[in-house]
């Protein structure tokens, strides 16, 4: 089947890609647009490593065809912070040891970002329920939850807002 041109807005920039209908969004992001923050974990909609934000929703980009994202605004971990200016969530993950191998971290933080946008004042239970679609096989989640709660606290105080 022939390829079609898709236009996406990724991390504030309008970008174009050529894709077959069956190409998954995660593959187009990583292989064509070289946005390799979102990872391919399970590729079966379970692990959340490929989580990106599409028009204000956390989405597993292995379970969306790129053509379905035509014209949409996509934010990945690259759009949240960078090595010179970390997002508050990234700082708190570092401070609280919210990662070990780091494979789940981009998806985890992208999801946590949306969670805090929707609920700036979460309880520990809200955080655990809110990140239940992201699997981490290293940390046991304890420090991830601590990091997200600490980021919420800092964002509320208006310090260091990214």
């Amino acid at each position, binding site marked *: *089947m022939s390829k*079609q041109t898709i236009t996406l807005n990724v991390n504030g920039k309008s970008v174009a890609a050529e894709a*077959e*209908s*069956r190409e*998954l969004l995660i593959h187009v992001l990583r292989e064509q647009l070289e946005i390799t923050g979102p990872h391919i974990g399970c*590729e*079966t*909609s*379970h692990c*959340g490593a490929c*989580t990106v934000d599409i028009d204000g*929703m*956390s*989405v*597993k980009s292995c*379970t*969306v*065809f790129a*053509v*379905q994202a035509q014209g949409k605004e996509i934010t990945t971990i690259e759009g949240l912070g960078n090595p010179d200016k970390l997002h508050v969530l990234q700082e708190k993950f570092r401070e609280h040891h919210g990662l070990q191998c780091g494979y789940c971290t981009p998806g985890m933080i992208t*999801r946590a970002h949306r*969670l805090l946008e929707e609920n700036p004042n979460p309880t520990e239970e809200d955080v655990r*329920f*809110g*990140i*239940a*679609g992201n699997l981490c096989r290293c940390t046991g989640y304890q420090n991830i939850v601590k990091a997200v709660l600490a980021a919420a606290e800092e964002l509320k105080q208006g310090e260091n807002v990214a």
Partner: protein
Amino acid sequence: MITGNFEYHQPSSLPEAVALLSKLGDDARVIAGGHSLIPSMKLRLAMPEHLIDLQGIGELKNIQISGGEVRIGAMTTQAELIASEALYKSAPIIRETALQIADPQVRYMGTIGGNVANGDPGNDMPALMQCLDANFVLQGPDGERVVKAREFYEAAYFTARDDLEILSEIRFSECSGGFAYGKQKRKIGDYATAAAAVLLTKDGNNCSHASIALTNLADTPLYCEEASAMLQNGGVNDENIAAAVTSAMAQIEPVDDNRGPAEFKKHAASIVLASAIRDAWARA
């Protein structure tokens, strides 16, 4: 994992979608949230040559409540059902159920229409729709028809929907009174080992309305007519709860799988149902 190849279509109105589906016929599938269909396309369990994406049809995304009736457009997502305060007032059991479906990411994409139309016995909304005595609106080449949720499910993945029809809307009456959706699952994101939807209305000490339906305990959702009548006619007390559970358990046909042997599921189902009845009655 890569799916088979297909041609992608994105109609912008329901008539356009129905016409497209009529033209393409068996080679086409409608895609809603895609969180059941895309995984099954990856496994090549589904290999449609055409995908008709409903996401561009604004008229399918709404929640209307008027004159005691709730109408939900098929493309309304689980996240939108959860967020709607008006819907929570009219039918709080919807939010309680939707929160137990999958995980946050899936709930942003997964739709009520996809959940009820797919015919997967593991989906939670079909039993809830039977409990609510909902009606499904189907649009086809010959126009619109309405099918009761209690008559919609024929076998796993087989429903009363014709291949050329699109489920456009779900309608049910507002429900007051006690409610509970109880679900036993192995972990977040899993389908139910056993789940039960219960609605009970209290009138003094009597029960003026009872409705019970079960998820993932047969190859279709199960509306438990006899068990519902037992509570409605005899009242909600320990003796009648036990009798209603026994009646409902006579209807189920669980199978051995990775969620456990059938005997275990029967055991889990009886506990889930009894506790959902008690929860609903306490809230009635």
